């Protein structure tokens, strides 16, 4: 049994970390009243921007500096996601475009953007498989704690991850603290619940919406970076990221807009997502699709549960999806 956990949990965590980044970023965004369905696209863009940065650095230099090997892709990823967040804000907050349409368009755009540059890089690298491997950069990202191996099962289950995985947990904890315990968080919640109230209380609604959405987008983008450089060992192939972006959005609902729940919930989702790999040999493989549905079923179940209980605190921010204009009558 312990053997099963030692094999299963690290894989569930690896699968769950991108979801954790995505859902924490999206939760922060939604707390400001912006329903950013572009998260899937943003994670995609975050991933490909990191790949572009790493590719340029790997091919441009002979001896790679480990610090720059991490810093360059990280910077590119954050920049790409930030620009996506800014674009979303400009359209929905400044121009007051419909949030659903904008978000869906940005997902389509983000995936297209990723596949276009991914395809170009694969051509440039001259690989004979439709993917590009950045193993050196990945080596820097995936570096694990040196003493993890020596601690047996404990080390394997709790300490065998790269720094981005721990960063995800720290970010989730920090986001939870900021949202629930600080003045900024209180103001942010007010903006998402009732922008007119926040405005009348002297809060700069536009600034909060921009800041929360852009920071949220950058956090989500890191999910794409982790996926490519750690989970996929630096191998980029088009469309491999799959529906993880949507899973992250489902997680926001599942965690009832509390980033701290995202820590266990995203790992649980990750586990459900890969459960099919552990079905006994010989079972019809078609059944794996049903296993992959599990996270979405869990989300639907959670939605039903929160609707039945109808507790005000467990509902989405009241003005989620609506744009705000002060002189609107």
């Amino acid at each position: 049994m312990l053997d099963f956990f030692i094999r299963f949990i690290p894989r569930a965590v690896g699968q769950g970390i991108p979801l954790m980044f995505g859902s924490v970023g999206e939760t922060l965004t939604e707390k400001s009243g912006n329903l950013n369905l572009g998260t899937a696209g943003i994670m995609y863009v975050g991933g490909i921007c990191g790949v572009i940065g790493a590719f340029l650095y790997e091919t441009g230099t002979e001896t790679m500096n480990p610090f720059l090997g991490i810093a360059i892709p990280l910077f590119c990823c954050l920049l790409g996601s930030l620009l996506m967040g800014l674009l979303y804000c400009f359209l929905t907050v400044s121009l007051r475009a419909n949030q659903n349409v904008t978000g869906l368009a940005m997902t389509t755009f983000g995936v297209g953007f990723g596949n276009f540059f991914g395809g170009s890089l694969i051509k440039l690298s001259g690989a004979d498989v439709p993917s590009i491997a950045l193993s050196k950069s990945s080596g820097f990202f995936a570096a694990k704690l040196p003493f993890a191996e020596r601690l047996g099962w404990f080390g394997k289950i709790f300490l065998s991850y790269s720094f981005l995985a721990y960063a995800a947990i720290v970010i989730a904890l920090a986001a939870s603290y900021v949202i629930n315990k600080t003045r900024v968080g209180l103001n942010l919640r007010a903006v998402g619940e009732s922008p007119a109230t926040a405005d009348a209380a002297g809060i700069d609604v536009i600034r909060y919406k921009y800041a929360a959405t852009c920071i949220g987008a950058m956090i989500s983008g890191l999910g794409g970076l982790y996926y490519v450089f750690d989970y996929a060992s630096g191998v980029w192939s088009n469309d491999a990221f799959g529906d993880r972006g949507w899973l992250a959005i489902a997680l926001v609902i599942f965690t009832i807009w509390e980033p701290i729940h995202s820590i266990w919930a995203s790992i649980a989702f990750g586990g459900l997502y890969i459960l099919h790999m552990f079905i006994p040999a010989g079972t019809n493989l078609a059944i794996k699709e049903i296993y992959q549905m599990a996270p979405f079923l869990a989300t639907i179940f959670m939605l039903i549960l929160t609707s039945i209980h109808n507790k005000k605190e467990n509902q989405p921010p009241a003005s989620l999806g609506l744009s705000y204009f002060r002189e609107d009558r």
Partner: protein
Amino acid sequence: MAADIPVLRLEHITKRFGDVVANDDISLDVRQGEILALLGENGSGKTTLMNMISGIYYPDEGTIFAKGKQVEIASPRDAFALGIGMIYQHFKLVDVLTAAENIVLGLDDGRKLDLKKSARHIKEICLKYGFDIDPEKKIYDMSVSEKQTVEIVKVLYRGADLLILDEPTAVLTPQETDRLFNVLRNMKSDGKSVIIITHKLQEVLSISDRVAILRKGRYICDMDTKSANAQELTDAMVGRSVKLNIERPVPVNPKRRIVVKDLTVQGEEGVEKLKGVSFELRSGEILGVAGIAGNGQRELLEAIAGLQPVHSGEIKYVEDDGSEEELVGKDPLKIMEMGVSLAFVPEDRLGMGLVANMDLTDNMMLRSFRSGKSVFADRKQPHNLAEDVVDKLEVNTPSVSTIVRKLSGGNVQKVLVGREIAMAPTVLLTAYAVRGLDINSSYTIYDLINRQKKAGVAILYVGEDLDVLLELCDRILVLCGGQVSGIVDGRTTSKQEVGTLMTNLGGGIYAK
């Protein structure tokens, strides 16, 4: 500070929305330690003017002086900095936060968020002016009057010394209104200034020191309350002489029309919204329904109209010949065809009854589109009806093809009531028919209702303003917590009696 420098002075303020001039060259002073009532009809620009003082709107022309110095108020934050705080008609509170969280919202003293310390400060303010609130309580658990208290504490917490209240009493019971006025008087003796917007003349006369009157965006005059009377104020507000008496003809030959027995209605999660309600509604009489908002008024009307599932009890419709028919379980359409008409004016006016984005003709059609045999709806009759309503009720609209959303509140209500009356009903159910309407439009509506009464229609009138209920209704049914607290004669009862029945079932220990 010298007493003769006004805390706030407005000079030549003008604000336009597109082609509409909402405020036209308004100049106004607010003195220290006074309660100034701002009076005007709907659409006379009172709220717009106040929104400019509190930083929601920015004036197109004119200057504002605070304590003698010229100031710019570009945002609510600027207004706070000048000690100006506004309590809006629609509360600006976040439901899922506690009172304390709402109060400290948007403030930054540069230190860590300390809700315990804030709660202590809130308690001090409450003690000083005579309120009572629980800082830990969530807004969604609060009554309307508690929410209003939070709003007032919120501006006091920010150190406001000029408070603006936009129709604060519209949602309060008489007792709550008295309590609010006591608080306002405490503030006044503490040297604070108060501007209060209200439609109710009795309140203006009882609370204010001075009255300023606006009409159609212009400043008309101001007068000392001591030397003013209700008639004078109304005439200045409307611009012509208005008769201030509501007629109350004695019901002619009243017959039982609707008999309600032991009616119980359950809301979500089995909460009883109405419990054992029994009464009779007679033809040619107006039965008023009084009660604090949300005590079952809506459920009562909807149950009769067939829109609300009834848990137990019966509702009988009595024909002229005395035969009875059960309404419970009947289709709303069937009930409507029997002559029971519902004119419900919800808080947002357009929620139920009219479709905001459709024009007058189409809204008339909502009642008649089923008639006729052809596949195509008959547009001619509704069109004529719309023109008729516009004509008879003096609805102020460019044409009958204007969408309803663009009309002002009073006109929207006239259209709704006009359509229901045109159905020639035998029972008219109205709720909040004059909600938010100014005096002139209100009297038009009262007149319409009275004409129906004289024609023998049985009218159930759910109202908010007790003064009006006492003047208009033949009998008044008081609801408290979904139960009938008492049915009193409108001609002999007193405001005090009804108010007590509203808050205590059967009048409680204070009865008799």
